[in-house]
């Protein structure tokens, strides 16, 4: 009997894994189960292009019906998996179907963290295409929109709201923006850009309560100020979808716990994307969970090979981007692994930061500016990071020395 692989979650990681199974020659059955009504689609545009589209937006589909048919992938849409029976090697769906698997991939993603505040019922969040459509209807000119949370989602939505003519306020509890992942100097540049675009940034501010009123709300800050607005959107982080794995008794550690092959604590079950944590050999086996498009795609590809028995460890360098206005923020590697920061001038008032370990090993690079200014050098830095290159700080700071030359050194 031919082998059966079931994938739970039809986002970037799940859809990519389904395709990669075929690209790697798998001839058994592939079943992709997603809880949304759509074909698999890209999430990055949800906080950008979908909101700013002039006409009615459509999802940017990853797979078409024709591609699914051509690759003999069965997509079950609008279907929730309710249980995994590890002993029987089967999953049960919300409509009562029981599907047997030989190997299983969990690509269940993450969900927005909800505000635990009195009066927060009417607050909007962003994860799915339907969330984006709901947000879009709120982002009309002159409306007063408050973004709670100064992370990537909050700031991308702040930019989108400004571009649609809203009056925008961002409230962040921490004393600065982007505290989780971005060096302070880059975060300060991002803050300057938002301020220049007319966004009011309120940092280091706790929220006491939200009071709903007719057609709007009032936010009461711990410091006493009240902010009246017409709509509130929260982007305060995401929680990995682990309930199914937990109920099945799989190990959990800030997400579904996977090893360097993306294998969970059950040898026949793998995990990929936002839902899982895994060790990065590049950083001494440090366990991370990455909520990023590239990671979802790379892990989808990797998990497919692992499901088919490949034994190489997952070794991609973390990389992500965030578009705000006409600028892009890009980070390769993990900046907090660095102990020295070197600034490299990229021209036109633009620069990148290179983060080095004590032994000069390049561990991360970060930059904010026009994509055309920063993308090439961040990409080269990413390759240097992957090779564990130890460039001299003077060389990486030398704008006259093309970074590409260090690749061949």
């Amino acid at each position, binding site marked *: 009997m031919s082998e059966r692989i079931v994938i739970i979650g039809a986002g970037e990681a799940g859809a990519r894994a389904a395709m990669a199974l075929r690209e790697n020659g798998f001839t058994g059955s592939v079943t992709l189960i997603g809880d949304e009504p759509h074909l698999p689609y890209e999430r990055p545009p949800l906080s950008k292009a979908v909101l700013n589209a002039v006409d009615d937006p459509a999802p940017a589909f990853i797979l078409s019906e024709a591609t699914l048919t051509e690759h003999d992938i069965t997509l079950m849409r609008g279907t929730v998996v309710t249980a995994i029976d590890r002993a029987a090697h089967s999953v049960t769906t919300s409509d009562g179907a029981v599907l047997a698997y030989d190997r299983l991939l969990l690509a269940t993603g993450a969900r927005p963290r909800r505000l635990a505040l009195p009066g927060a019922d009417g607050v909007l969040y962003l994860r799915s295409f339907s969330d984006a459509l709901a947000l879009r209807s709120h982002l009309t000119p002159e409306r007063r929109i408050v973004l709670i949370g100064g992370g990537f989602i909050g700031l991308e939505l702040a930019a989108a709201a400004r571009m649609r003519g809203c009056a925008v306020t961002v409230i962040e509890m921490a004393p600065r923006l982007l505290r989780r992942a971005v060096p302070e100097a880059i975060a300060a540049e991002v803050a300057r850009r938002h301020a220049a675009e007319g966004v009011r940034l309120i940092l280091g501010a706790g929220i006491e309560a939200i009071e709903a009123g007719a057609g709007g709300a009032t936010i009461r800050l711990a410091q006493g100020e009240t902010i009246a607005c017409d709509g509130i959107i929260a982007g305060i982080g995401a929680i990995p979808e682990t309930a199914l794995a937990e109920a099945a008794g799989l190990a959990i550690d800030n997400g579904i716990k996977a090893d360097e092959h993306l294998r969970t604590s059950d040898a026949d079950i793998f995990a990929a994307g936002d839902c899982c944590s895994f060790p990065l050999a590049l950083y001494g086996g440090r366990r991370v969970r990455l909520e990023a498009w590239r990671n979802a795609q790379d892990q989808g590809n990797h998990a497919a090979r692992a499901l088919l028995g490949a034994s190489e460890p997952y070794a991609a360098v973390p990389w992500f981007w965030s578009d705000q206005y006409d600028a892009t923020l890009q980070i390769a590697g993990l900046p907090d692994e660095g102990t020295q920061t070197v600034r490299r001038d990229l021209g036109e008032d633009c620069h990148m930061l290179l983060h080095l370990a004590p032994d000069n090993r390049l561990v991360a690079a970060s930059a904010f500016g026009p*994509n055309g200014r920063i993308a090439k050098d961040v990409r*080269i830095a990413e390759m240097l990071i992957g090779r564990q290159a130890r460039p001299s700080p003077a060389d990486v700071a030398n704008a006259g020395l093309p970074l590409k030359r260090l690749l061949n050194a």
Partner: protein
Amino acid sequence: MTSTIAVTWVDACAADEIDEEDVIRFDHAGRTFAIFRSPDDAYFATDGLCTHEKVHLADGLVMDNIIECPKHNGRFDYRTGAAKGAPVCVDLKTYPVRIEKGRVLIGLD
């Protein structure tokens, strides 16, 4: 069969304006192109936007004969326009190039 499609040669840039193993953007008549200089000093031209999400390829990195999209790492062989795997699956359109008196000319149809 002899092709009868008329090609218009358009002066895009000076040959030495592009570094070896690099790319520049060239806009002409409302269209955008990418012009490449390979490591072995040959010149090529393609459409300027990635077939995946309309990102300017000239912002991407050239490695040997491959251009990599700066957003999603879609890869193309810029000599033939061939897409080299996910997330890109649609090939890039290519254009003929000739070098005359130190200038790069691209042939547009």
